[in-house]
Each structure stands twice: as structure tokens, then as C-alpha cells.
């Protein structure tokens, strides 16, 4: 049984609209879940081992990870422009406690730690220099506000 062409087009447009709504709904769920994951990672609290007196960026990497090489390049370039933080590469597979603490499920991932050893930002996936720089600005702005 074939549909009237106009009705067939209408049905297909309905399918497109339904799919669009489903994707948008799914995206909201994913964003909320990632925000929750990030929130739980940041409430991990400071750790004495990271209280080095200078902000740090932990770069979680893995073997056979091409994006991890790109991420390390981005962090190193940022450090050249703004030599105000230390970096530490963490092999995610060899650091189960750290990956659990920061809810790391894939690499690359980056965690910004302030001078007191508390995490201030977590990025899951490749992050660009501008975003990391903004997060450093926020870290320093919070530090200045706390000091004054």
C-alpha cells in the first residue's frame, strides 16, 4: 500500500522533527551528566601531594593516543606564553586512584590544580589553549579574591 506523496512527505518531515527532538533531548542529558561528573571531580578536595606553591596542570594521557600528543603540545605552548604553572603528565592506565578521583574515563583529560593543591577545573577530551588560559585566569582571580 503506497501513501499519497504529500502525506508521505509529511510523515517523513515528522520523522525528521521527531529525530531532532530526540537528539536535542539526548544532548541535554549528556551535558547534565558531564556537568555532574565534573562537579563530583572538583569536590574531590585538595591533596597535600599537589600543594607545591604553584598552580599545576595535570595532563592525563595514554599510549596510542594521538589526541594526547596534541594536548601536550597545547599545554606546552601555553606554558611558553604564560610560564606561571607547572605541568605533570599522568598515564591514566597506571594511575587508577587519580583517574577515579577525577572521574577520568577517556584520554586526553586535563585538571587544573591551584597552589594549595585543590582542583579548580577539569576538562574531558581535547581542550584548546584559549580555554585553558581562561581557566588559569579564573584560578588566579579566585586566588586574588581570597587573598584580599
Amino acid at each position, binding site marked *: 500500500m503506497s*501513501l499519497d*506523496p504529500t502525506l*508521505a*512527505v509529511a*510523515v*517523513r*518531515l515528522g*520523522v*525528521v522533527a521527531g*529525530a531532532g527532538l530526540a*537528539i536535542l533531548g539526548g*544532548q541535554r542529558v*549528556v551535558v547534565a551528566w558531564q556537568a555532574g561528573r565534573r562537579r563530583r571531580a572538583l569536590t574531590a578536595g585538595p591533596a597535600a601531594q599537589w600543594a607545591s606553591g604553584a598552580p599545576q596542570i595535570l*595532563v592525563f594521557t595514554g599510549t596510542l593516543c*594521538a*589526541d594526547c*600528543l*596534541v*594536548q*601536550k*603540545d*597545547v*599545554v*606546552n*605552548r601555553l606554558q611558553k606564553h604564560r610560564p606561571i604553572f607547572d*605541568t*605533570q*603528565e599522568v598515564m591514566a592506565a597506571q594511575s587508577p586512584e587519580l583517574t577515579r578521583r577525577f572521574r577520568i574515563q577517556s584520554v586526553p583529560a586535563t585538571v587544573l590544580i591551584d597552589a594549595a593543591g585543590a582542583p579548580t577545573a577539569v576538562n574531558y577530551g*581535547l581542550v*584548546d*589553549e584559549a580555554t585553558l588560559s581562561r581557566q588559569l585566569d579564573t584560578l588566579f582571580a579566585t586566588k586574588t579574591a581570597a587573598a584580599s
Partner: protein
Amino acid sequence: MSTISTTRTVDRTALKVTQAGIVLTLLLAFILSALFSPIVLLVPALAVVMIAGALNPEFAAFRQLYLRVLRPAGILHPRPLPDNPRPHAFAQLMGGAVLLIAAVTFLAGFTVAGWVLVWLVLVLAFVNLAFDF
């Protein structure tokens, strides 16, 4: 921290144009084939374009449209960001392969199964376009 000797970048605008082209072409094929069934030939045509473009960027039709028309006309601007181009090329290759299978499925008379495969590529391209996922 050890580094690679060169920083690879990908023009995100070129990527978005390609993804938008794939989504629009497949949507047009899906909707208009209800009125004029030969429009479904857009599916194998797009498959060939995607596979050829993944293997050699010179044959990437949407990318060339961006480079030769949209960017010089100032309609779109480049946005190079640190990234690895190979996963994107691989994804395009896989998408083209699935569309080829969809085309064969249409030929075999399994229309619904063919559209399911087309929608798989369409949804993934859209998610990539809209949410960088």
C-alpha cells in the same frame, strides 16, 4: 613533558561545512524521495564523494566548495584548532562505506533497512556538527 615536533591543526569551519553538507544531502534525499524516487541516488553519490574525499582531500566536494567559494567570498572564515585530521577522515570513510551498503540495500529492495543505515550516518554527522561530539 615530551612533545611532538609539529603541531597539527584542523580547520573546524571546513569540517563543519562537510558535516552540514552530509546532513543536508541525506535529509533532502529522505524527504524528496517520497515525491520523486530517483532522488535516492543522492545516497550512493554522497557515498562516493565521502570515500573519495576521505582518501584525498582534493576530491572532498564540500571542502572544496568551502575553500574555493565560501571562504574567498568571506561568507565563512577559517578556524584552525589543534586537532588530528586522521580520525575525521576515518569517520568520513566509515560513513561513506555505510551509505554504500545502504545503496546496495535499496537496490535489493529493502527500503526500510536502507533508510535505517542512512539515518545512522545522518544522526552521527548531525551530532558531530551540532555538538562537536
